[in-house]
């Protein structure tokens, strides 16, 4: 006996789309509003910058000039900025569990649904 889905009303269809949209926009904007998003570089400018002190050789100085930067002081922040890669192992483990758990959840629930699909398409397994 094939499963007969109920017919969804127009209002129901709109409601479902809105639910999905709210979830999507929420997932993107929530980290932004909580100020938890992204990783920026921190510059560590040196005193009395010269091209040599900033480790730029003659050719590189020419390249900076071609890009419109002739004063080493202007390049000071760009050259000395570095990322901070320190992280907590705890957070890494949480992430790993979350990602693996997510895939396990999805595959298991999918398999349950998949058996129905196959049973309906090919008939109940004959032995």
């Amino acid at each position: 006996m094939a499963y007969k889905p109920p017919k969804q009303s127009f209002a129901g269809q709109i409601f479902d789309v809105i639910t999905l949209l709210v979830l999507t926009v929420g997932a993107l904007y929530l980290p932004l509003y909580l100020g938890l998003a992204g990783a920026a570089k921190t510059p560590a400018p040196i005193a009395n910058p010269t091209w040599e002190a900033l480790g730029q050789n003659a050719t590189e100085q020419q390249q900076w000039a071609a890009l419109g930067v002739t004063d080493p002081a202007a390049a000071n922040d760009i050259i000395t900025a570095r990322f901070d890669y320190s992280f907590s192992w705890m957070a890494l483990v949480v992430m790993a569990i979350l990602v693996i758990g997510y895939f396990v959840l999805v595959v298991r629930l999918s398999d349950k649904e998949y058996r129905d699909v196959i049973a309906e398409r090919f008939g109940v397994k004959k032995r």
Partner: protein
Amino acid sequence: MVDTKTASGQPERLQLLRVLGPAHIWALGVGIVLVGEYMGWNFAVGKGGMIAGLIACWVAGLLYTCVAMIDSEVTSTVAAAGGQYAQAKHIVGPLMAFNVGLFLVMAYTMLEAANAITIGFLLDTVAGMQGHSGLHQQPFIVLCVMFLAWLNYRGVLATLTFNLVITAIAFMAIIALFLSVQFGVSSVPLDFSAVTTDPMPYGWIGILASLHFGLWYYLGIEGTCQAAEEVRSPARSLPYGTMAGIMTLLIAATMTWYVCSGLIPWEYLGQAGTPLFDAARVTGNRGLMVLLFIGTMFSTLASANGCINDASRAWFSMGRDRYLPIWFGAVHPVYRTPYRSIIFLVPIALIFALGAPLDQVVTFSILSGLLGYTFMTFNMVMFRKKWPLDTIKRGYVHPMHPLPTIVLLILCATAYVAVFLGYGTQLIAMVSFYIIASLWFHFRRYRFVRRGDQFTMPWPRPEGY
């Protein structure tokens, strides 16, 4: 043009139009991705130095070669709009398919938004160079999205032929820059001294971190499968177009790294907005500058164009199966495009293009892509297990199974850690979003779906079920 198929006794059916050839597939795949060479990849250099940029380029290249091989085999067999979505539906199950459909729509819509933002930024830069400061970027962002949506609305053949032309020009621009620099057009010589004097400014962790943006060189190549229902002979064209695409990109990516790293100090390159255009500026050659400006514009447009195409196909397929309201599963009777899905996704893209910062939008896109690649690994294993090679005819069989799968899984795991290093919070927010959406689908939405109808391929019963 209205040639609705009327098989004897059957009611009239509207289908998408089968008009595309392998060249269009190449244009769809490379068109979406090539923009990654014009902007974005260079953050990998910033994350770990010049060498890290090259390693990321090749490691990500390996990851995507695996993706292309696996995808070619499955798609040449499951030829349906929605690509990986239809694959998941037949091989793993409905909930996985719903998730994959969301990955696709999110990855492409976000990438489209990122492209629109870039076009606004580029025009602002040019206006600034001509002495007009404070250009309003919004009208250009909106126009870009509207025009391309309209093009997509009007028919797939024109859309992808347009993509073929502008992608080819953007690709030629990279080659022209490479050759000109090789033959000494540049007024400033190439300099790779940073490779020896400052090879790894962050050590090995920098190389790991750079992989996050290394993905950008190729992100979206898997979009070729979205066109499966519109290709004349999918079993042949899809593997051919996809493989040609990944080869094109490997060449373009390596040339891009070489020219940019040689011409631009790595500290600058690591934060540049438009690296190839900057490299052309360093050469001091006006012709190259104009050429690379056009290349940047075209690659961005091609990418947004392909993204609209792919995202709407995925959304359409989900509507057709009632994973989403059936209203979206409509085909335009004249143009034969999923017109309602195309229109619906326009405001969504605009919300993100006008409201969110570029790096956030792109990270969202990369993460959705990454989740999709992870899915491909176990999908491939299950495909071979449920339908061994001698049970169904495949258009293409990839060699050395399961080696590509294992490599892909290892690289995906590495990429998660790389993303985690910069954007851990987003990763967690994103996965939480997919978990909630999954539960919503399983417990609420799935009751509107017809069970047996979801399996549409003329295959035998899967083994073990």
